[in-house]
């Protein structure tokens, strides 16, 4: 039964992906494509976050750090050197290297300790990067940031739409594959019960660090795409808001599902767009973050499974005997 369920889900994903791929050929709305491109980029970012929070049970409050590193890496390469394809590749490699090194050390320092530490250290570190981006003016132009040119291949909006969509699908497939791999299973075992996983002979720390690194790298890639989409980068890429976006998207969409991250990204990005427009109508909508904050708190409290998780559990309930569900709940 699980098999048919998965197949149906895969069919739905396929149809949606095909629809999104065909959309530019039948419809022509610049603002919609820009918005959808943002959704794809933040989907990648949110999925990278979901790998930590949803699949491994690690809370990061500094995910913006990896995002920002990617954004600045591409910006600096394109600004200081020619915007060639080679430099673009170099920027990607730099991002991967930097995010991998930093996430490795953050993981090494904190992941053997209580979950508080990772959250705290990532929050403080991203604060440090924010300051660094403000102060290292020769490289970053401080608060104001800078615009840059992008390689020919990324110039066309429609092409870039396809690139981001394909990246998102690729990241989704890679992470689905990864979370279903033996390593991914261990990560989920760690989330459920760390001591037991340790006592089964797994080096929990190693697995957590692996999750931290992979998550960091994908967040960096999302940052690259984000900066390219704006052709501009400033210190806001390191701000807590970016991390909060990822948190909101994964939590509202549903942790530990990957699809949830994508749905969450879609919802939040469209809501951003809509609420920003409403700000012209009434001043309270300028503070729209407050609504997100409240929704987020309520979601954590009453709706911890998110949209996808709740749908799945309803589905599950219909198919299985109810007492299975009960046991699951006790474990949580």
């Amino acid at each position, binding site marked *: 039964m699980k098999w048919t369920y998965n197949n149906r889900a895969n069919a739905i994903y396929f149809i949606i992906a095909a629809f999104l791929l065909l959309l530019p050929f039948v419809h022509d709305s610049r603002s919609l494509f820009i918005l959808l491109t943002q959704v794809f980029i933040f989907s990648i970012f949110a999925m990278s976050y979901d790998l930590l929070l949803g699949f491994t049970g690690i809370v990061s409050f500094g995910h913006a750090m990896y995002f920002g590193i990617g954004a600045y890496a591409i910006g600096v390469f394109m600004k200081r050197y020619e915007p060639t394809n080679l430099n673009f590749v170099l920027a990607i490699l730099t991002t991967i290297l930097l995010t991998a090194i930093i996430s490795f050390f953050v993981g090494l320092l904190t992941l053997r300790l209580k979950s508080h530490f990772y959250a705290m250290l990532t929050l403080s570190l991203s604060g440090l990067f924010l300051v660094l981006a403000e102060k290292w003016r020769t490289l970053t132009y401080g608060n104001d940031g800078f615009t840059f040119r992008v390689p020919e291949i990324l110039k066309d909006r429609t092409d870039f739409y396809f690139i981001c969509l394909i990246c998102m699908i690729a990241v989704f497939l890679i992470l689905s594959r990864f979370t279903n791999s033996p390593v991914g299973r261990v990560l989920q075992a760690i989330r459920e019960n760390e001591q037991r996983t340790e006592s089964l002979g797994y080096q929990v720390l190693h697995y957590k660090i692996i999750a931290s690194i992979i998550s960091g790298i994908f967040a960096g890639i999302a940052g690259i795409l984000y900066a390219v989409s704006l052709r501009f980068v400033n210190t806001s890429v390191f701000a807590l808001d970016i991390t909060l976006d990822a948190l909101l998207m994964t939590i509202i969409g549903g942790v530990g599902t990957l699809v949830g991250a994508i749905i969450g990204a879609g919802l939040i990005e469209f809501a951003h767009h809509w609420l920003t427009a409403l700000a012209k109508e009434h001043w309270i909508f300028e503070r729209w973050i407050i609504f997100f904050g409240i929704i987020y708190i309520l979601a954590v409290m009453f709706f911890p499974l998110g949209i996808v998780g709740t749908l799945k559990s309803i589905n599950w309930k219909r198919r299985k005997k109810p007492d299975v569900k009960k*046991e*699951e709940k*006790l*474990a949580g």
Partner: protein
Amino acid sequence: MSELLKLNAVETYIGQYHILQGVSLEVKKGEVTVLLGRNGAGKTTTLRTIMGLNPASKGAITYKGEDIKKLPTYLVAKKGIGYVPEDQGIFADLTVEENMKVAIQKDNQETLDRMDWILDLFPDLKKFWKKPGGLLSGGQKQMLSIARAYINNNELLLIDEPSKGLAPIVVEKVMESIIQMKEQTTIVLVEQNFMMASTIGDCFYIIDDGRTVSHGVMNQLKQDADMRRKYLGIA
């Protein structure tokens, strides 16, 4: 004699594990009831369930005829039940005096008198009065924990494996003190040490795989080698 505490078909989950699957027992006032059984049978969980530390999901727990199953731990304690956990639960950085002070609920003459009586029973505590609890020996920690559980004149004490990890000579000392306490209060004792259990205990319950499987007066068990072998793995 009437029963002070009664458990009827109590079931308890810890996480997803169904630890207690039907524990029923009656504790009579003034007696020492011993819970016996193999490691992991559910004896400690039974005590923790009574205290509300691992709340029961099914069954009934009544103390003096009152349902206490749903009460939070601190209210169970306030009903007059003292608890001595397996690890003694000593506050390591607090002095012996402070450990006692945390427990004291009424600061009156009666408590002071009882304190004197307890300190006579456990002179070591007086000796280390101002020392941190963490520096006490295993036996002294056990004494402090028992003293702390009794200071409020609790009518029922739940004591979890007081002999665990103690040298035989210390076990004897702890045992003697429990025999003295027995004059004052009712005791539920979890004990693996059959010598100790059979010396102090008036009646017994055997717990196996989360169920009470047998009970009776201690003398029966002393004579029934078969049962001892079956459930306790001792001859």
